[in-house]
């Protein structure tokens, strides 16, 4: 979880704060209310999640409750992985555990 948070924090600093470190931005702060991301930012954020963490973000998951703070983003990724693991366990019980944690997944929502 910490690693996920760290990667998200680094992406936000690089992509939206142009390499600057905003000490006042906490992991629970709303990225929109703090003006960190603008209207194209949401789509960039989704692209980053899909590429970096190999999760697929469904249209109905694009809501502030899932994506609007560093912690929410990290928890969202974590949930997606857990869901993927559960599904994999159901479908291929014998193969469970052989896949790396960030293996490409095809979760459709």
């Amino acid at each position: 979880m910490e690693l996920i948070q760290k990667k998200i924090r680094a992406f936000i600093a690089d992509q939206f704060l142009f390499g600057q470190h905003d000490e006042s931005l906490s992991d629970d702060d709303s990225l929109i209310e703090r003006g960190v991301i603008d209207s194209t930012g949401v789509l960039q954020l989704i692209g980053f999640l899909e590429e970096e963490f190999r999760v697929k973000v469904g249209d109905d998951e694009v809501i502030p409750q899932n994506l609007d703070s560093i912690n929410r983003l990290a928890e969202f990724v974590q949930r997606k992985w857990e869901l993927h693991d559960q599904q994999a366990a159901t479908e291929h019980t014998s193969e469970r555990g052989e896949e790396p944690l960030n293996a490409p997944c095809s979760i459709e929502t």
Partner: protein
Amino acid sequence: MQALNQVFTFWHTLPPRTAFRGILELPPGHSMTVKMGSIRINSYWQLGFPESVASSTSTADRDQEYVERLGELLIDAARIRLRADVPVGAYLSGGLDSSLITAIVKRFTNSRLKTFSVAFEDPEYDESFYQRQVVSHLDTDHHEVRCTHNDIGRVFPDVIWHAEKPLLRNAAAPMFLLSRLVRESGFKVVLTGEGADELFGGYDIFKETKIRSFWGVQPDSKLRPLLLRRLYPYMQEIQNQPSSYLKMFFRIRPDELRSPLFSHLPRWDMTSRIGMFFSDEVKAEIKGCQPYKELEGELPAAYKSWDSFSRAQYLEAAYLLPGYILSSQGDRVAMAHAVEGRFPFLDYRVAEFASSLPPTLKMRGLDEKYLLKRFAATLLPADVLRRPKQPYRAPGVKSFVDPDNGQARFDYVDDLLSSDRLRQYGVFNPHAVQMLVSRLKEGRATSVRDGMAFTGVLSTQLLIHQFITNFTKRTDHGANSEENTCVYR
């Protein structure tokens, strides 16, 4: 630094402040008397609106009376602005307002009317199709300046020289090229359609305010926010936005709904974020600045009694119009070539008539400039009235950098945005600006905010370069800047 912070929030400084310390400007509608060493500043006119009324019913008869009254006022406002010992031309954007003024002028001039337009090579911004429609209907002697990206970037240093403040958009540059064309065509006076959108309710920000207020009544509604997509059909950023996010971007929290600046919060919040590019020193200096409070402190006492539509109109007409539209994008670049703009819609009688109208006669539902269009229908063909409204916009960052080859189009861009120069002038964070510039060169940063940040940084650097560090080298003060020494070309 407070001035810079204001520009990077409102697009202009709040008068009497200017970009330069120790130099003040008169607020709009004010006069100054200097007598025996004493200075008196006096307000001679102020825009105002009637108190908000619960419901403003309009009847067909009364609407028709309003249409006739508007016609009389506007025709007279245009007529008296034709008084001149030189021929008077007209700017023609292809939209309703300038077309209407041109149509009125046609009625009162015996000589063949000359009209002038900006056209763009970049089809995304070009409106020449609509301009030709109007020209063919009104049969004017038409001239256009067709701007390429290079044309815009090339004159931008001159534009900043004349605007004397940082700019967040480069839309003033084509207007600079247009006034040059007017001057070269032997004209010194032009009528334009400025002011109609502010006074008669034409801008999308008024629709946005209406929708946001409507949504604010039922913040959990899923259908109300969908109306926001009807706004800004030309902005993909908004169209692609998930609905759940529109709510957050368009600021309808209870405290925001109560704010006297409600209508303009999304715009100003978005703009002020580009302050992230300021250097640490500048950030420290402006830390306690509260530009919203500064503006709120200036609002007239009656402001609170106006409806939300009128308040939005006031903020647009009392601030952006004089501070940016009529100044940086209007008078400054027109006067760069000694061209005088005249504005029939800003005749005080027209302005007072417009502000006395009930909001429903300005925008009926989401139909903008309702009353003005009713009058325009008597003079203009239906296809001009029906065309989708498009605000005047110019190609942005592509005028300075070419993403196709990843290079800046001009040496001055690379020079002023180099780490050394940014460090030397001290206003911006070199590392952050460099990241922005390389992304723009690669075509990877495309948001409106990134474009405004780039233009804001570049224009501020140009301002410092031309007025502070290299002031003595910049010697031209006249119309023929082409021939004179410029610091940057």
